[in-house]
């Protein structure tokens, strides 16, 4: 196995297209355990962290740009980012330990394509876009389009994510992400639920996006819950409809972390709670900040 650390996106793209079994990596927090568990090691490992724009977190006032290999710790440490996107920041802060968060990245969390990846529901509800580089330049995909199944992505073998674009949080909007695990830290989601809402001037919900992780082969949106919320004030009856729609949207597996029945039940509870938190945050962002 050969290690290479290109210094530009173009160099990385040409390395990938010239060696068929080359694989990109950022923090290697999934790659190393997978190789140790017996997955064949690639001939060439392409380290993306020496490419400047891949390790960067910036806002131009209209949108945030997060380099695909940026340690997730940056997303919890940056006060402006975590103030604007507390849900996405908290999701990043749930991935493993401090040791892991100093290495793990949004690009890796997404492209590892685990159904339980914590950052993905939080990115989906914020309608984050992925800028993908390949031999013929770049293309832009919605994060919700990237993962096609467990361990499977829509990226070609010679493509990789350069950065994520996140439009600035509008006023009277807020996001939230909640995760259920049987312990406090360091576990894989049994269920994850992300929510983002925008409130109208009269306090009713103008827009809502909800997404669940770890309950289906990929992260799933909950259109029925979103429709129930729009125009409402998220009263008890609406929230119960949200919970029911969330449970209904699940297609989970039975495993040691939870049964199908348990995951469906918890998905409903978490979706409801995430909506409530997102609304509280939206009320606090009254246009002044």
């Amino acid at each position, binding site marked *: 196995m050969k290690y290479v650390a290109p210094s530009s996106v173009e160099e990385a793209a040409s390395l990938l297209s010239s060696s068929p079994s080359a694989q990109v990596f950022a923090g290697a927090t999934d790659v*190393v355990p997978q190789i140790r568990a017996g997955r064949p*090691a690639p001939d060439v490992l392409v380290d993306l962290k020496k490419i400047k724009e891949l390790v960067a977190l910036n806002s131009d006032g209209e949108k945030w740009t997060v380099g695909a290999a940026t340690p997730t710790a940056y997303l919890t440490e940056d006060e402006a980012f975590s103030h604007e996107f507390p849900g996405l920041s908290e999701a990043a802060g749930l991935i493993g330990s*401090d*040791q892991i968060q*100093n*290495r793990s990245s949004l690009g890796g969390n997404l492209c590892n394509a685990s159904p339980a990846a914590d950052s993905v529901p939080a990115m989906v509800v914020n309608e984050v876009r992925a800028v993908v580089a390949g031999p013929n330049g770049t293309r832009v995909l919605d994060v919700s389009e990237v993962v096609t199944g467990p361990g499977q992505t829509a990226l070609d073998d010679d493509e990789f994510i350069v950065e994520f674009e996140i439009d600035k949080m509008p006023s009277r909007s807020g996001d939230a992400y909640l995760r259920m695990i049987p312990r406090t830290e360091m576990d894989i989601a049994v269920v994850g639920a992300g929510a983002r809402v925008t409130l109208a001037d009269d306090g009713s919900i103008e827009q809502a996006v909800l997404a669940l992780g770890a309950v289906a082969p990929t992260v799933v949106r909950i259109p029925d819950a979103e429709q129930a919320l729009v125009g409402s004030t998220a009263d008890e009856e609406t929230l119960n409809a949200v919970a029911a729609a969330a449970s209904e949207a699940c297609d989970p597996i039975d495993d040691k972390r939870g049964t199908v029945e348990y995951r469906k039940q918890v998905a409903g509870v978490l979706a409801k709670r995430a909506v409530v938190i997102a609304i509280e945050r939206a009320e606090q962002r009254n246009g002044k900040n």
Partner: protein
Amino acid sequence: MPRTHITTVINGDETEFLTEDSTSLLNALRDDVGLTGAKEGCGTGDCGACSILVDDRVNCACLMFAPEADGTVIVTVEGLADSGELHPLQQCFLEGAALQCGICTPGFLMAAKALLDKNPDPTETEIRYALAGNLCRCTGYDKIIRAVQEAAREMRGQ
């Protein structure tokens, strides 16, 4: 197998070593540099026994490929003591019996140092979260938490 030449600063000293690309930084530190303080527990980033500081951030050395260390500044547990005098964390672990078998201790010390470097007065909850990536099968954690609290107090001059 061709070996790659790595230049780094380890515990304050410019250090060069040769390594195979597939070698973990942990194995390079232990076998090529001769620093055996960092330990391999799980080898998959779960247990934290191999924790070291890389450019001031705590990392699992087992999850890093050795060539990634080129150009970085590394601190291992061997770099904690100053001219033979133990670091307050080491002294407090010793006095508070915050270790039994000792395999996890170098990792706990480095994770605790990373915490105290950026937060000199952490709450117990903050300490527990900062050490969540380090596993100890002997102590039950309580004495480790107390030792970190005591070291933090000493380092603040209280």
